[in-house]
Structures are given as structure tokens and as C-alpha cells.
């Protein structure tokens, strides 16, 4: 069973490596959006520092959302998604595997590049560590919830914009918790509650979202 899931993971990663520009575009978007903020709100270091958690999280959230459209649409267009419905494995596990691959390709690079942007916004070392940790816990949630939206908009005109409307309201809890964790460290408070809730949310999303996504894929291919 794990062999076929592993095969799928390997295929998606191979495809991403052969077309690295897709993943790089997402990282580029993240960097550009964060860099635009100081131009819009002024260079005052303290002010930027206080806005940094929210800015970084909103930018990461938008970057993930932007990449979601590609999650299933390529497989949908060339017919491989159809073939996946015929595979012995439960569709839920297959979409979970694809979502994991998607996170490795888009979410993880965001986590890795975030310290650089955090330095630009004058965050201190302990805040940067917390930011990376919160993003590490939070970006999988974004990918998991996003996979539902990606599946629901398969084959629709203007799917990308529609994903935003469907998914962004659902991104409120991870945004609050993730940005809040960094904020807490900034104000000398403990971020443990934030991280615990974020972790709980990730576990819940891990178990719940693949089935919703699988149902959505079946409906859109029906």
C-alpha cells in the first residue's frame, strides 16, 4: 500500500524538480509581497517590527493560496487524476500524499526563506525561530485546507479567484494562531498555547481534510 503512495510522492517531486520554476515562482511571490510592505507603510524599524508577524503570515498565506490551483489541475487536464480514481488505494490517502508533496514543494521553501525576510523586518533571533516553527506547523494546515478548495474548483473558469473566496475565510484560525505565536514572543509572553492549538489543528486537518478533498474530487470528475 505504501509502495503506491510512495510512487505518487516520488512522481510529484520528480515533476517539480523537472519544472523548478513553478516552486520558485511561489517563493518569489512571497519575497516580493513582503518587500512591498515597507514601501507602503514607511521604513520605521520599530513599526515594521511590530507589523512583521502579521505581514509575514498574510504573505505566506497568499503565496500558498496562489500555488493551490496547480495542486490537481495538471493531473485533471491530462487525465492522470481520472486514473487515480481507479487505483486500489483510498482516494483520501492519494490526495493526502499529493498535498504532502505540494507542501514539500511550496510550503517548506516558504519556511526556509522566512528568516531572511524576518531580518529585513527587524525581528530578533528568538522571534525568528518562533516564526519558522509556527510556519512549519501552520503551512501544512494551509495546504490541507487549500486542497479542498483546489478540488472544488477543478475545471472551472476563473478557478484561481474562486479558490481565494472559498478558502481565505477558512484560513483565519491558522493565521490568528501563527501570527499570534510570534507576537507573544515579541511581547515576552509564552507562545505555548498558540503552538499547542496550532498543532491540534494540524492533526485535525490531517485526518479530516483528505476525505473532504477526495469527495470533492469525485464530485468534480463525476
Amino acid at each position, binding site marked *: 500500500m505504501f509502495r503506491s503512495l510512495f510512487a505518487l510522492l516520488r512522481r510529484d517531486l520528480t515533476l517539480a524538480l523537472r519544472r523548478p520554476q513553478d516552486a520558485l515562482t511561489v517563493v518569489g511571490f512571497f519575497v516580493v509581497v513582503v518587500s512591498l510592505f515597507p514601501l507602503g507603510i514607511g521604513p520605521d524599524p520599530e513599526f515594521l517590527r511590530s507589523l512583521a508577524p502579521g505581514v509575514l503570515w498574510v504573505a505566506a498565506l497568499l503565496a500558498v493560496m496562489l500555488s493551490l490551483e496547480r495542486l490537481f489541475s495538471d493531473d485533471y487536464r491530462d487525465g492522470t487524476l481520472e486514473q487515480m480514481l481507479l487505483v486500489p488505494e483510498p482516494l483520501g490517502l492519494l490526495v493526502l500524499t499529493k498535498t504532502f508533496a505540494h507542501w514539500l514543494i511550496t510550503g517548506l521553501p516558504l519556511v526556509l526563506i522566512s528568516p531572511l525576510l524576518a531580518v529585513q523586518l527587524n525581528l530578533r533571533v528568538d522571534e525568528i525561530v518562533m516564526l519558522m516553527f509556527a510556519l512549519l506547523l501552520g503551512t501544512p494546515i494551509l495546504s490541507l485546507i487549500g486542497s479542498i478548495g483546489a478540488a472544488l474548483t477543478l475545471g472551472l473558469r476563473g478557478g484561481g479567484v474562486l479558490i481565494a473566496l472559498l478558502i481565505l475565510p477558512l484560513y483565519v484560525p491558522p493565521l*490568528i494562531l501563527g501570527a499570534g505565536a510570534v*507576537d507573544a514572543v515579541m511581547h515576552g509572553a509564552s507562545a505555548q498555547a498558540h503552538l499547542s492549538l496550532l498543532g491540534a489543528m494540524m492533526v485535525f486537518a490531517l485526518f479530516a481534510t483528505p476525505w473532504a478533498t477526495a469527495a470533492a474530487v469525485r464530485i*468534480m470528475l463525476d
Partner: protein
Amino acid sequence: MSERSIQWFRFTAPANFYDLAGRLIPWFAALTIALFAVGLYLGLVVAPPDYQQGDSYRIMYIHVPTAWMGMFLYVLMAVYAAIGLIWRIKMAEIMAKAIAPTGALMTFFALWTGALWGRPTWGVYWVWDARLTSMLILLFLYLGYMALHAAIDDRQRASNASAVLAMVGVVNVPIIYFSVQWWNTLHQGASITVTDAPTMATIMFVTLLIMTLAAWMYSIAVVLARARIEVLERERKATWVRERLETES
């Protein structure tokens, strides 16, 4: 027991629904008007002004019922959507679709009156209060549901896909609500919490109850009317539709 289940199935048959709803709608509409008239009279004339907020609190008689309806209708919509998706009952799909615009309207009214109430109370139209923020996100959820429904051409697929979205939404609503509330308590400085009047005069309570009933009756009437049109559209090729339309014209 068996008789009851037969009646239930009669109600789910589109033709019977169409007839029954047609007979019920005028009653619900009349009740809506009567209850609104009584409620507004009690709320604007009879009920005394609040000792702290003066007359401005009276907007509560619109704000609270619409906020309740907005939240309740979302849950109801998700329940109907789930029934339609799992048991493939067409009437449930139609009801879910018909509820969405009314729910969105109620939520919008709650936000609008909330902003109007906020001006005299807090001095600004909008504060990022936990309840207002949650209602705003609820409005987005309604808009997403309607947008997805409209974006899919195939009727069956549109119903099924938006049903999944409604179910995901209804699971998320409490999570969103609690996270927003938590966020709000952490950022105390920015907001002023609204306290419910701890002792509410009986007349205020009765008025609120009547206005809530009025909002209910309005929602039922409008949703049934919308569902009736949807039934006609879906079944436009069926013989019963032709019969009904001929007798009505």
C-alpha cells in the same frame, strides 16, 4: 410510524412540495408583516429607553434577531446540503440553495446594524470585536457557497460540490469563532467588549422575542418562495409543471 414516513416522502416529492409551499407562503408572509408591525411598535414606542445607551439600543431589535438567523441558517443550510449529498434527496439540495441568499442577507443586516449601533456606543462604525469579526467571516462563507454554486454549470455537480463546501464551513465555524474570540481577548487594547444588559426588562425581552419570530417567518416565506421557483426550473419538463402553469395562467 409508517404513515408518518409516507407523509414525509410525499413532502419530498417536488409536485407536492410545490403545492404545499404555494399554500403556506401567504400565511407566513402575513405573519411576517403582523409580527414586524407589533415588534416595531413595542420596540420603538412601548419599550423604555436604556438607562445607559438611551434610544440607540433599540437597534438591537433588528441586530440580534438577524444575527441569530444568519448563524442558524448557515447550520440549517449545511444540514440540508448534507442530506442532499448523502441521501441524494433533490428537495434537500433545493432547500440548501434557497437558504443561502437569505442567510447572507441576514448576516449582512446584522453587520450593518452592528456598525450603526457601534457609532453611538463606541464612537466608530467598525471595531474588530470578536462577534462582528466572526459575522464578517460568516458572510464570506455564504458568499463563497453562492459563488461556487453559480460557477458550476451542471446543476447536480453544483449542488454536490457546494454541499461539501457547506459541510466544511459548518465544521469550521466554531473553530473560527473561538480563534477570533481568543485573538480578541489577547488584543484587549484595541476593542471595547459589548456587555449584554444584565437585567433586561420584560418588555424588552418580549419585543426581542417577537422580532425574532418575525425574522423566522420572513425567512421561511422567502426561502419557500425561492425553493418553489427552483423546483419549477429543475422540473420544467415534467408533466405536473405544465399542468400547474396552465391552471395558474
